[in-house]
């Protein structure tokens, strides 16, 4: 525990002399920074996608789970009678908090986007709709259907399960896809940083040779590389993450009319998720560089 604490403090505070032993230039510096920036930029979108999918899933689950619709289609002379019977049945069904007949005006507003305002809805044989709200215990759908079949032959109960389930599943898959993308980005970053660290160590074989000659232990040598790569990755990820955040911010603002995309973004405290991107990239770089430094140093002995 003490060793981990000391390593962490050493990583953050650094050592002026040790930090100077590796020459600061080389293409590996820009490669690490660029990779981290690019991956952080993409990670911001992956996080936004995951959060949006999670929100949609929650919304669809919660708003539709406790509601259902009863549709009554019957010849005009019978429809009011069946409607009254259905309401009686619903009022006496345990688990139903409220049942409300959807008015013609409400039906008009639902149908207008498809049929236009000129259609005379009053003269159409529209079915009657009853909006049902469940209480916390919910109702027994099977039993209610049997009662309706017996007394209200024109009634069809739609508890939204049929079309809600695939939507929620799709949202969950989108969330998983976003998370998988983040993992993939972290793994790709680790692979590229590993290659960059190995290239840096090969390019600095003379530095390692000198340090070994004067009695430097592996920890000292690897720390000289690890700290540099960790901070390059952290700084690159900070830049990429900030740029991604700005793009998402403007993307949100410009997509008001695209309902399927309006959810892609961050809401309220969700922006705080972006704070973890640079440290996460730093941790990935730390582990990747430390591991490759260890392997290289073992290989040189």
């Amino acid at each position, binding site marked *: 525990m003490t060793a981990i604490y000391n390593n962490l403090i050493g990583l953050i505070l650094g050592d002026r002399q040790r930090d100077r032993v590796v020459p600061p230039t080389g293409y590996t510096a820009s490669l690490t920074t660029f990779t981290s920036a690019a991956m952080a930029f993409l990670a911001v979108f992956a996080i936004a996608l995951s959060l949006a999918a999670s929100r949609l899933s929650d919304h669809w689950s919660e708003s539709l789970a406790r509601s259902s619709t009863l549709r009554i289609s019957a010849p005009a002379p019978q429809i009011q009678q069946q409607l009254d019977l259905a309401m009686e049945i619903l009022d006496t069904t345990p688990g139903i908090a409220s049942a409300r007949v959807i008015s013609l005006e409400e039906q008009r507003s639902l149908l207008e986007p498809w049929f236009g305002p000129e259609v005379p809805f009053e003269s159409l044989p529209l079915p009657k709709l009853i909006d049902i709200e469940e209480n916390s215990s919910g109702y027994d759908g099977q039993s209610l259907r049997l009662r309706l079949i017996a007394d209200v032959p024109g009634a069809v109960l739609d508890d939204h399960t049929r079309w809600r389930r695939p939507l929620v599943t799709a949202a969950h898959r989108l969330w998983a896809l976003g998370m998988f993308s983040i993992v993939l980005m972290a793994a790709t970053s680790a692979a590229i940083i590993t290659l960059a660290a190995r290239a840096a160590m090969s390019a600095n074989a003379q530095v390692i040779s000198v340090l070994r000659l*004067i*009695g430097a232990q592996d920890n000292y040598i690897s720390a000289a590389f690890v700290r540099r790569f960790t901070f390059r990755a952290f700084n690159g990820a900070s830049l990429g993450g900030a740029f991604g955040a700005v793009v998402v911010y403007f993307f949100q603002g410009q997509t008001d009319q695209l309902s399927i995309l309006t959810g892609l973004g961050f809401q309220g405290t969700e922006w705080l998720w972006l704070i973890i991107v640079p440290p996460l990239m730093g941790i990935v770089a730390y582990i990747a560089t430390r591991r490759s430094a260890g392997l290289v140093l073992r290989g040189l002995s």
Partner: protein
Amino acid sequence: MSVIEFENASYSYTGGELLSDVSLSVSTGSFYFITGPSGSGKTTFLKMCYGALVPNSGHVHLFDHDLRQMTRDEVAHASRKIGVILLDCQFLDHMSVTENIALPLAVSGEDRLSDNMNLKELLSWVGLIGRADALPPELSGGERQRAALARAVIMSPDIILADEPTGNVDWEMSQRLLQLLIELNKMGKTVLLASHDLSLIRLAKSQVQARVLRIANKRIQLAGANL
């Protein structure tokens, strides 16, 4: 008391055996010359002396610790008590001569450059006070060797190992480097100097009680009076 002890140590590489069945005890404060033709195994022998190579068979003890039983970090720690000067002495080219010389202090975590007086004295001792801020690529061959010597002794090591330190310098500079090593030996340091320059060895023997080891046919033996 011996600081380095070889016990039937052999070292072979893919190309074949380089050193065979070496037994030797290097005592504190002694001065050894290691000589032999080029490619005879002088460098291999010295590398085993500071733990850069481990014998394939037999044992090498550094400060009473068996090299084969030591971890890399233990070897690194032990090698801080050994100052090494190589023919192609390498430095960190982006750091000044002063920083390079002081690097062993930083690596060992000892007092950093707080003791500037000691560092200045050291630079003065090796004649590099005027080149303190120069970068290693700006140094001549002799200056590099002296900088390497200063770096080798800054930790006040018990042993100085020098592998052909005069190989790239003129006779005058060779004598100067030899004088510095003799001074260190008189201060109680153990010195092992690999060289094929017999005139240098003769010069040293006139000033210090040095033993000459000759490596030939993969074996090491004490050379006689006739060099």
